[in-house]
């Protein structure tokens, strides 16, 4: 309950009656309908649901990459567009999307160059975030010299480089195998604990959502909407084997129920 109160005190992301309709040739598509959600500072919120449920669309709306057609959405008390201009968040995509012509350090430096950080500060920040994602010493390598998991870690470092308070992650580990994924999940939690960022995390893996989140937002399609918001009762400190505890399994069960209720698998 304490957690919830703090959310009330400092809402970082606030959605009230948010709807988003795409006009297509086959008529309107309701990607989001009546979404109400408050994300507090330091929350780790996962969005889970089948494809077409609008979880990615909602994350993109927060990032001002899509624009809601209804309702009110604020980030740090500003419109998403203003928040983007204020560089309020770092965004991690499903693919690492590193520039092949830049070294790892060069890739992490990219946002810093664009945002006009001084050369000395660029160097310092690159070193800092590379060590944050355990990639010290890989700065001079080119992306193709790194494994997929390492590339995704570099892309997380890139999103962290300019020290935005919010980290938005769109299925960042979706393309990786389960062993790598487990390790990155564990590292992401450590990183979250160290930096205290607010994280929005889109996934379609129930264990991943339960393992990582303080809150799990269950969504369902046609129209994309929230069907359940689950507050995690797991402690912040989470070793990987917490996934075998009854508490974990109970939360996972509730997520599964929520998914089933919202979506008849027709």
């Amino acid at each position, binding site marked *: 309950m304490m957690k919830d109160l703090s959310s009330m005190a400092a809402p970082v992301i606030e959605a009230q009656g948010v709807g988003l309709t795409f006009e297509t040739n086959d008529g309107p598509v309701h990607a989001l309908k009546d979404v109400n959600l408050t994300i507090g500072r330091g929350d780790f919120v996962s969005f889970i649901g089948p494809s077409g449920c609008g979880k990615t669309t909602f994350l993109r709306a927060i990032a001002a990459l899509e624009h809601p057609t209804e309702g009110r959405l604020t980030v740090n008390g500003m419109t998403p567009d203003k928040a983007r201009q204020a560089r309020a968040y770092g965004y991690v995509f499903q693919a690492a999307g590193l520039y092949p012509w830049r070294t790892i350090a060069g890739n992490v430096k990219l946002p810093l160059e*664009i945002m006009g950080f001084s050369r000395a500060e660029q160097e310092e920040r690159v070193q800092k975030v590379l060590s944050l994602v355990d990639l010290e010493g890989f700065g001079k390598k080119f992306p193709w010299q790194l494994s997929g998991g390492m590339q995704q870690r570099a892309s997380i470092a890139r999103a962290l480089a300019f020290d935005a308070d919010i980290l938005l992650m769109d299925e960042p580990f979706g393309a990786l195998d389960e062993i790598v994924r487990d390790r990155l999940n564990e590292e992401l939690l450590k990183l979250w604990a160290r930096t205290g960022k607010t994280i929005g995390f889109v996934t379609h893996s129930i264990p991943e959502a339960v393992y990582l989140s303080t809150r799990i937002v269950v969504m369902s399609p046609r129209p994309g909407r929230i069907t359940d918001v689950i507050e995690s009762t797991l402690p912040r400190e989470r070793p990987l084997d917490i996934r075998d505890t009854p508490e974990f399994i109970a939360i996972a069960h509730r997520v599964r129920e929520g998914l089933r209720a919202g979506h008849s698998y027709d």
Partner: protein
Amino acid sequence: MMRSVLPILTVLAAILVVWYGAAVWLNSAWAYDQAAREGRELTLVDVVNGTMAQERPVLPVPHQVAKGLWDGVAGQKITSKRSLVWHGWVTLSATLLGFAIGTGLGIALAVGIVHNKAMDLSVMPWAIASQTIPILAIAPMVIVVLASLGVTGLLPKAVISAYLSFFPVLVGMVKGLRAPDGMQLDLLKTYNASSAATFWKLRLPASMPYLFASLKVGIAASLVGAIVGELPAGATAGLGARLLSGSYYGQTVQIWAALFAAATLAAVLVMVVGLIERVTLKRMGMAR
């Protein structure tokens, strides 16, 4: 290395056999004519011999062309008007100037097309139309118009050469500048990057492999343009002029020697661009 030498030699040998055969066949009419006029009968050996060293053969045999090339390249002072090196240099300088203009124009138009909706809709059809007009029809007009403005010499040829070479660069660069996918563009949007930053940090580096592919086509087209630019108005210098004067005086050996000089020049130019490509992409980390 050795594995590729044998196939190349085999193909070369096949070409030589076909060439000698064709030369005997095409040049024999003249040999028969000569013999008939002198009232001689020709044996097969006589026919073959008679086709190998004619003054004005329909198709010169390879060793005649080789000798013509050798005389043109090594047998003259390079300042001589009979030197293929001198003529080659004249053509090369127009080619390089035209290539520079054409590449600059192609890149500039591509940047405009990618950044401006109106240019996107209007420029490409004109660019395509420009390439459907035979260059042979345009070249004399360019020469005449520019000459009436007092511009002669290198520049008119370079303009024709640029006219041919801007197009592949334009097409390649439009594709290259649009190569970044939606995700990469979204990423820069999340940094609130300006379109100038998007261009310099993403679009331009991403277009490099496309640029070099079209530069290789462009430089060969530039050479063709420069040669065509030398044909009208009776130019007296350049490989095009050698081709033209050769055809005026029936000097088929001279024509073929000039053709081979042009082909060699084109091959060297494409190789140089390829070398620059490899070095650049390697330094950019894009070649493995």
